[in-house]
């Protein structure tokens, strides 16, 4: 059986390691350090860990001030509050002056589960990618999360890293892949259609691919872990080498991965597309798997949508 690790677990682990390597790394949290996993850094480096209390706006503003003084702040809370409540501080105090703050938000998407709609950020990618100077990263598993958080720590400038609560399958071997900010990964090759997925939907896309293969459909699977800046080349290549594109994201279909891919496709090399995601609605309470099922974020739905799209082309 595949190992399952939440991407937030990877974050907590990497932070401690980064803290050992670089004295300038500081971590801020808003009273959620046990959930965001920053508490392990806090234990190891109490002087460089700042609990700001339940105040997400000041969390981001203080992080900006630390960055303006040469520190590399990692600011964490739930994705909902980081990108929603503190949006304008991220825009004006972090991104406008291009300060070196890493907004590492956990509990993104519908897989927050039981906490329900108020805590399920489904528009965070859209919000963050609309801000100039912001880099937006959404890792697929613990291995890529680890690698991309290291990469983000070395990059100078604001980065939004979207992390999840739920345990998700590990899909990458550390040795086999390179994770570079802004470079998509062709996880599996294919000639008929391309499934472009982000975050924990990459695993679902890979499962859909296997089912499609059984029906003689060869689907390429691309992991867009960096939604901004997006890897145009890998997308344009897919439009030339396969007939259609299906995007999959645990996010509102408005403004997220699907939109970002469509922006590249329509301007460069239009092909038929289908976007799978949350269809402009709020979430609800439930177990993560039940919710993924209800909102169509499953290998079965990806399989069906790919076939529908290909059937239209016949």
């Amino acid at each position, binding site marked *: 059986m595949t190992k399952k690790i939440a991407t937030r677990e990877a974050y907590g682990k990497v932070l401690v390691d980064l803290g050992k390597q670089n004295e300038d790394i500081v971590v801020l949290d808003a009273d959620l350090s046990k959930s965001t996993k920053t508490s392990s850094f806090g234990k190891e480096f109490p002087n460089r860990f700042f609990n700001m209390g339940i105040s997400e*706006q*000041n969390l981001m503003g203080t992080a900006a*001030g630390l960055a303006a003084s040469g520190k590399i702040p990692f600011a964490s809370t739930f994705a909902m509050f980081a990108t929603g409540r503190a949006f304008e501080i991220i825009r004006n105090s972090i991104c*406008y002056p291009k300060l070196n703050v890493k907004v590492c938000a956990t509990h993104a998407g519908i897989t927050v589960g039981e906490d329900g709609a108020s805590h399920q950020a489904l528009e965070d990618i859209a919000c963050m990618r609309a801000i100039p100077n912001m880099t937006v990263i959404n890792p697929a598993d613990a291995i890529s999360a680890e690698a991309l958080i290291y990469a983000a720590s070395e990059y100078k400038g604001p980065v939004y890293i979207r992390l999840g609560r739920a345990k998700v399958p590990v899909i990458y071997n550390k040795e086999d892949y390179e994770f570079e900010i802004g470079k998509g990964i062709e996880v599996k090759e294919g000639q008929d259609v391309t499934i472009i997925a982000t975050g924990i939907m990459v695993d679902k896309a890979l499962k859909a691919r296997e089912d499609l293969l059984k029906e003689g459909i060869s689907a390429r699977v691309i992991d867009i872990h960096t939604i901004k800046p997006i890897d145009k080349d890998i997308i344009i290549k897919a439009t030339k080498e396969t007939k259609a594109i299906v995007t999959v994201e645990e996010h509102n279909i408005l403004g997220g991965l699907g939109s970002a891919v469509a922006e590249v496709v329509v301007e460069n090399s239009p092909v038929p597309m289908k976007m799978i995601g949350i269809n402009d609605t709020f979430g609800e309470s439930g177990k993560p798997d039940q919710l993924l099922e209800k909102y169509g974020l499953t290998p079965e739905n990806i399989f069906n949508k790919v076939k529908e799209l290909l059937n239209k082309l016949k």
Partner: protein
Amino acid sequence: MSSKFQDLKDIAVQVRKDIISMTTAAGSGHPGGSLSAVEILTALYFEKMNIDPKKPDWEGRDKFILSKGHAAPVLYSVLARRGFFTPDKLINLRKMGAMLQGHPDMKGTPGVEMSTGSLGQGFSASVGMALASKLDNRKNRIYVLLGDGEINEGIVWEAAMAAAHYKLDNLTAFLDYNGLQIDGPNEEVMNIKPVDEKWRSFGWNVLEIDGHDFEAIFNAINKAEETKEKPTIIIAKTVKGKGVSFMENQVGWHGTAPTEEEMEQALKELGGEL
């Protein structure tokens, strides 16, 4: 006969003239709340702060953050007169392609420590800067100026709570308490009284002064420096539009630029001891 602080008073006159000329040339901007903060910024930049205009990024420098970013004209004038850039840049305030943006831009203007304009955020950033100095055992001091209307913002109180929690005695805030905000007097728009008790109850050392009196400003800054384990706020009672008779205490001059005639009258009033 020259009085105590005559040099600083002369600079303050020049800064007020700059504010009037700049906003007139720009055709927009915020003269009222710039004029009320002239003595505070003059005292900091020309006397108190350890800074080097030739090395604006020098690590050991004291920092000033204009959290009420709309008062950019007073900051720009003081920076120019202190030598961070040449005063001829002032006249291009708010013009397309010019260095001096409508609100402070730390990436574009030497000496600007934080990009501000959206209220409350500069204060929050100043907390981060004070934390960083503590972390690095730096002896520099962080100064921040807030408007009285600005403290309506929730982030101000989040940051105030955090500054006291982390015992940021290297942080000194000024409240430019001119009593007026865009829509009218504080009391009518959103009552902020009792201001002193609010800050005291948030764990701050609170001092109250006349914000146009240099001696009072320096005494307060010195007391703030001596205060340990607590951040200090200096509540500076000021006059919006200070120094120009037809602007003083007039809410309409919050965000309106003078006409050419008004500029001439204002400059005449500000006079020529220079």
